[in-house]
């Protein structure tokens, strides 16, 4: 089971944001999209989610062009956690999670399947305790978990997350990353746009590194996160070493002196 982009290109009002991207995302893996601001990470994710139609090339889910899929079908397979953690009305956490069932709903009201999926999603994210609290009254960390539960409630086989850690404290960031990793281990395809290299190094099974709208490189953490790549793409001077458990550790010393 794969999400694939072939020669994908997209331009926002004439200025190319993505060009010639070839990449494959696999089920059962947590793939992290990295790159500096403006590299085209969110645009790539939006193409994968079917929110944007690529202007060249294709984005496909198991050989089906994503933009050709009926929106409801697409929504059942691909769940998106959008950037910005928007929640516009003071509805209860449970009602918010229930929104994730919209692609499955036929007619009025919720089915037994809907209720089971909602309960499972809230239990997986440990959000049952504030099921009845309005989402506007939750802390940032609680709200992030509720929003993730909303995606899980739709039971998509793919979870795309656009900067899911923005504005979260370190502890809450790890909560969300652990949940995403759990989902990948359970067999779902997880693709996340992240900014923090430390998180990418620690959690990613596969990394796609973008630079100025092009694919710079992709592969395992060891292949992608190298001092040379980080210097070239981010302009930073980083030390990389393996700790006693054999995991790659990263220490950013500063900007590269040019």
């Amino acid at each position, binding site marked *: 089971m794969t999400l694939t982009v072939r020669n994908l290109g997209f331009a926002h009002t004439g200025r190319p944001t993505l060009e010639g991207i070839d990449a494959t995302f696999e089920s059962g893996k947590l793939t992290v999209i990295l790159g500096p601001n403006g590299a085209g990470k969110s645009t790539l994710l*939006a193409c994968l*989610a*079917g*929110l944007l139609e690529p202007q060249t090339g294709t984005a496909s889910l198991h050989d089906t062009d994503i933009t050709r899929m*009926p*929106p*409801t*079908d*697409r*929504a*059942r397979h*691909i*769940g*998106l956690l*959008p*950037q*910005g953690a*928007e*929640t*516009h*009305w*003071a*509805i*209860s956490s449970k*009602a*918010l999670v229930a*929104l*994730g069932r*919209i*692609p499955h*709903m036929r007619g009025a009201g919720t089915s037994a399947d809907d209720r089971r999926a909602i309960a499972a999603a809230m239990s997986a994210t440990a959000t049952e305790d504030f099921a009845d609290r*309005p989402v506007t009254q939750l802390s940032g960390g609680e709200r992030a978990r509720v*929003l993730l539960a*909303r995606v899980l409630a*739709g039971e998509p086989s793919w979870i795309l997350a656009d900067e899911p850690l923005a504005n979260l404290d370190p502890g809450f960031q790890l909560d969300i990353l652990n949940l995403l990793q759990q989902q990948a281990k359970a067999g779902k395809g997880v693709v996340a746009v992240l900014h923090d290299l430390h998180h990418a190094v620690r959690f990613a099974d596969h990394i796609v590194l973008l630079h100025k709208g092009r694919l710079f490189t992709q592969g395992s953490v060891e292949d992608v996160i190298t001092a040379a790549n980080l210097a070239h793409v981010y302009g930073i001077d980083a030390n990389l070493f393996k700790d006693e458990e054999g995991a790659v550790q990263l220490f950013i010393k500063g900007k590269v002196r040019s």
Partner: protein
Amino acid sequence: MNKRALTSLLLLLTVAAFLLSLMAGKVWIWPSSWAADNADGWIFLELRLPRALLGLCIGAVLGLSGAVMQGYLRNPLADPTVLGVSASAALGGVGAIYLGLNMLPFGLFACAMLGAGASILLLLAISRGGGPMGFILGGMVLSTLAGALTAFVISIAPNPFAASEIINWLMGALTDRLMADVWTALPFMALGVALLLSTGRALDALTLGENGAKSLGVNLFRLQWIIVLGVGLAVGASVAVSGVVGFVGLIVPHLIRAIYGEQPSKILLPSALGGAILTLTADSLVRLVPGPSEVRLGIAMAVLGAPFFLLLLLRYRKGAA
């Protein structure tokens, strides 16, 4: 109290307000003389019944449209007038009065609907492919333009009587309407209401923002069409028969949200009922105020509505602080 009991209560209040509107006035007409073959029976059939039916329909249309617009724009300050449909329909009506077309049967109604229809087409053209923001800017521009043209028509009115007739109509009222008005407006309103009631799930999805809604399979482009057509037909028809009645679309969804919670789909039907109750009650009250001529419903609604809304805001701010 659970939601079902609440909705039953609202339904009951709607019936009560409707009955009040049938009875209240300079002459009270009790149910015993509704079918009587005398002056009371005649007033009931020819004046009260159409007036109450229009109050019911217009109130429901405005309450529902307000709830849909606020949900769509995720902005509690939105109301049906932001689309510019009301102003355009009003311009059509004013034009009809200026040209004397209101003397023809359905002349005023047809012109007002033409105004509403033109604004629908313009909105759809302006907002092609754009999100809610482009859409709302288009509506505001349209509203301003129609307002200015309306003022222009009044300024070139041939005589003071024509000008005063136009201004009187603009202020919104349900006086002296006939059953024929009800039957002409009803199909447009019914179609508009049906379209608007179908938007609940998409509005719920918009709680997560535009990208969140799209990722749930909601077609925002189609939603925009449904809303423009729904509000255009329903509000256009209600302006065509009653002039511009403000505030219902703004206030009612707020009151309903305070009772039903904020989920957009859950407040659609209750907002329609709430709008009907408010309009019917206000329209009964304006008939009971002593004086040589009746207070216009549009004025009464704004005079009662504005302080009430301020009070609500003050309470809300205290609650938020």
